[in-house]
């Protein structure tokens, strides 16, 4: 996991959550994690492919999820129904999309897959040999944890000889 992947996600999450919720989130300490992730009530997953590959997870409680979609749509969601699920998937999609634009500007062009959602806590997600960068955020609706598990694809990787010349395919 490269440190340069942190900022695109922090910036994208800040911009999107501030725009959507009306207040910028505060950020806790970013950390690296290798052990499996045990899901909170709601986890949105967004796949990334291209010059960087992997997955980005957005975990939160159901209360936080309902609060976020209620604020965005301006109508109260008491249950985490299909429409609310669609809303949380989109938040994950938009944050990852924004981060992908910033990653592209840094030289890592990639695209994102449609979001998927895991509803229900206690599921173990392992990103296998990929370490995850964990970005804890405190939003006006509660805690949201972003887990970024990305690696540079072979074609974009700088060779070990240190020439700084990327391998051409």
């Amino acid at each position, binding site marked *: 996991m490269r440190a340069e992947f942190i900022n695109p996600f922090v910036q994208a999450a800040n911009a999107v959550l501030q725009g959507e919720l009306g207040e910028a989130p505060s950020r806790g300490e970013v950390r690296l994690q290798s052990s499996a992730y045990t899901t909170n009530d709601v986890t949105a997953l967004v796949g990334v492919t291209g010059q960087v590959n992997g997955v980005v997870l957005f975990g939160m409680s159901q209360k936080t999820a309902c609060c976020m979609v209620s604020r965005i749509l301006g109508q109260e969601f008491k249950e985490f129904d299909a429409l609310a699920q669609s809303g949380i998937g989109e938040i994950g999609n938009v944050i990852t*999309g924004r981060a992908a634009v910033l990653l592209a500007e840094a030289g890592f062009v990639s695209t994102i897959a449609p979001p998927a959602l895991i509803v229900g806590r206690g599921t173990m997600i392992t990103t296998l040999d990929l370490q995850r960068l964990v970005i804890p955020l405190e939003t006006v609706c509660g805690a949201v944890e972003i887990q970024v598990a990305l690696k540079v694809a072979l074609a974009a990787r700088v060779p070990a000889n240190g020439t700084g010349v990327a391998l051409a395919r």
Partner: protein
Amino acid sequence: MVKVMVVDDAAFMRLRAAKTLEEQGYEVLQAENGAQAVQIYHQHRPDAVLMDITMPEMDGLAALKEIRRLDPAARVAMCTAMGQQAIVMEALKSGARDFVLKPFQPDRVVAAVNKMLS
């Protein structure tokens, strides 16, 4: 009544855009993928289209080209979270009138539609 078609595979985003536009007095048609958008455009000829890019069945760029083939005067604005230059350029080259970056704010959606209709 002026008809606007909102195309997005996420129900939440369709509802959100539709709500914003209906409050402005527009009649809103909804499609959940590019193929459905082309079909609805053919049947109802909306005055403006607001379309996502990443969608199943047929993506927004393919649907934009198909709609512009059906109606070279079609007014279509693309909206996406992926504002990379290559995608923006392809959309504009294919006839998109505007590009709205998600998350879209209500006034930005209304401005994009009003601009297309002016």
